[in-house]
């Protein structure tokens, strides 16, 4: 088990910069995911940690040692490849034992460790099978066993579940999490699937255009995205333009372009920005007809609805567990609201109605108006 530490790592291919001067600390025994769209540099970063690519500049520490420049076979890291890359001419046990054989581990010990590993990945007794006799899910497990049997300091996983069908994927996500907590090895996992990253990771590093947008626990990243990119890449977000008015204590007042003024916790404001985009997740919004004034003028006792805007319902869609409303404000911003269908008394609000959308200031975040592409 070891930590991974990247310092100013850059990788360029000819005139294209794939990874742009990134820093990263991965703690020992942590499950960290690189999440981002294709081409964001997440696989390149993983391949640099694995030793299949060398950084153009920067340092890569595995534990105490800077391994930048070392080839893969000299690093105490193992990889589960997207295509599994199992050796088709070797039996399952020979595949799993390949790394041990390179390390000159004795025959008996190898046999014992291979069997233990096959047991861990739920394939006991499959050692004599040929690779082409195994299903996709089984091959996936063999690839995992082949990497883990070497007891690497860090295990790298490059979209390992990409080729599996949805049901098997869900099952393997839980399985991977179980195995990780059982062996206690640091996992670095590359994926473009936000749900997969959320399900498994201790922390997620959201990547875009060769750099990290935000690194944090799944809840932090979801609830309080630091950039517009993170806000729109993970789940749905409503973003409203506004200007910072004043700050007092824990709250900053922002005057929205649609007219109303809202409060944002100061520690979720981007530093030094005058013009910001205020965000709130669709499920955090309360929707009430414009006539109803039950929530008062924006300062209800329990804090609900302290922030509010007026909007017009464009489309309302009944989904079953919830109803989704697509609303538009007077300045043309789109706001999506999810309302859980708690009782049968709930009357869906029809299209065209003017509504009041309110939410708790604690659920508000703000991102720089110019930061990040859409």
């Amino acid at each position: 088990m070891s930590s991974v530490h990247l310092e100013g790592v850059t990788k360029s291919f000819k005139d294209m910069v794939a990874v742009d001067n990134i820093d990263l600390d991965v703690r020992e025994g942590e499950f960290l995911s690189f999440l981002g769209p294709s081409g964001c540099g997440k696989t390149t970063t993983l391949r640099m940690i694995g030793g299949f690519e060398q950084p153009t500049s920067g340092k890569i520490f595995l534990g105490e040692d800077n391994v930048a420049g070392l080839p893969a076979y000299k690093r105490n890291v193992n990889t589960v490849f997207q295509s599994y890359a199992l050796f088709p001419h070797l039996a399952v046990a020979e595949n799993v034992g390949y790394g041990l054989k390179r390390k000159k581990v004795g025959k008996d010990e190898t046999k014992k460790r291979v069997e233990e590993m096959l047991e861990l990945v739920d394939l006991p007794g499959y050692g004599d099978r040929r690779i082409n006799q195994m299903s996709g899910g089984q091959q996936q497990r063999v690839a995992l066993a082949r990497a883990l049997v070497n007891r690497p300091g860090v295990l790298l996983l490059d979209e390992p579940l990409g080729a599996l069908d949805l049901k098997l994927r869900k099952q393997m996500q839980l399985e991977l999490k179980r195995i990780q907590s059982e062996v206690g090895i640091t996992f670095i996992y590359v994926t473009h699937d936000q749900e997969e990253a959320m399900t498994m990771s201790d922390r997620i590093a959201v990547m875009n255009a060769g750099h990290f947008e935000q690194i944090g626990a799944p809840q932090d990243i979801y609830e309080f995205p630091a950039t517009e990119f993170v806000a729109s890449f993970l789940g749905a977000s409503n973003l409203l333009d506004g200007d910072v008015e004043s700050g007092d204590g824990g709250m900053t007042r922002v005057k929205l372009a649609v007219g109303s003024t809202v409060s944002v916790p100061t520690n979720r404001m981007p530093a030094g920005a005058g013009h910001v985009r205020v965000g709130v997740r669709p499920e955090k919004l309360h929707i009430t007809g414009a006539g109803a004034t039950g929530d008062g003028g924006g300062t209800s006792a329990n804090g609900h609805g302290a922030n509010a805007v007026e909007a017009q319902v464009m489309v309302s869609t009944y989904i079953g567990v919830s109803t989704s409303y697509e609303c538009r404000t007077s300045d043309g911003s789109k706001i999506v609201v999810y309302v859980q269908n708690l009782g049968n008394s709930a009357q869906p609000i029809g299209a065209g109605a003017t509504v009041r959308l309110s939410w708790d200031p604690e659920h508000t975040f703000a991102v720089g108006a110019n930061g990040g592409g859409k």
Partner: protein
Amino acid sequence: MVKAAQEMKPEAITERRRGWFLNIYTKLAIAYLFAPVIFMIVFGFNDPQGRFNLSWQGFTLKYYSPSRLFEFEELNQAITHSLTIAFLTALLATILGTLIALALTRFTFKGRSALNLLLFVPMASPEVVLGAALLSLFVTLNFARGFTTVLIAHIMFSISYVVVTVKARTAGFDQNLEDAAGDLGASPWVAFWTVTFPLIWPGIMAAALLAFVLSLDDYVITLFNNGGYITLPLWIAGASRLGVPVQVNVLGTLIFMIGAVYAIVSIIRTRGERVSSIH
């Protein structure tokens, strides 16, 4: 019978007619391909009275006895020459050709596409042109003709075939497998011998056999460059003017049998593999 034909659907009739035609055609094609071989095998059991082994005179097995089979010193020497050249050609052309195939499939380098194209030149040009060109090259360089020139010539025309055969195997090779081997602690050298080589081995074997056969068989190019180093095809061609001895038929039969046995064994083996991979 007439009634049955009337009841048959029109498509079924064409289907049957095609089946009948295809059947005859297949048999004719096989007969055409094998008639010379069968003729050669049969006349290996002939007991000719004169010099010419052209008409059937009676059955004998005597030419299969080693003392009669190897009774011509020159023929024995020609066989030795041919096998030596064929073995060395297969070995060297396969090594060189495999390296070229590997380079062509995994690296991009200057002159790569030119090399890809030029490899087809020896396959596409008439042998007589290659033979004459090589001869004039050796004469210009004042290089004595003999064993070395024959070997150089054979390697030269075999390499292209080796490259094409091995490339078919290396082109489909998943580069991730070598990455995986490296990831598991294998140096590039070890990764090559434990992963890449075993996987392209069938292609290399096929290429080596092809080179061996091409060399064993070559007449035209060898004719220009032998300098007195007589190979089996040269000796047989020379002997045919005086009458080919039965021994040549017997040798031909034996060589053919080796090839046939090899083909049958490899067919059975691949069939066995396919069956085992289904289960």
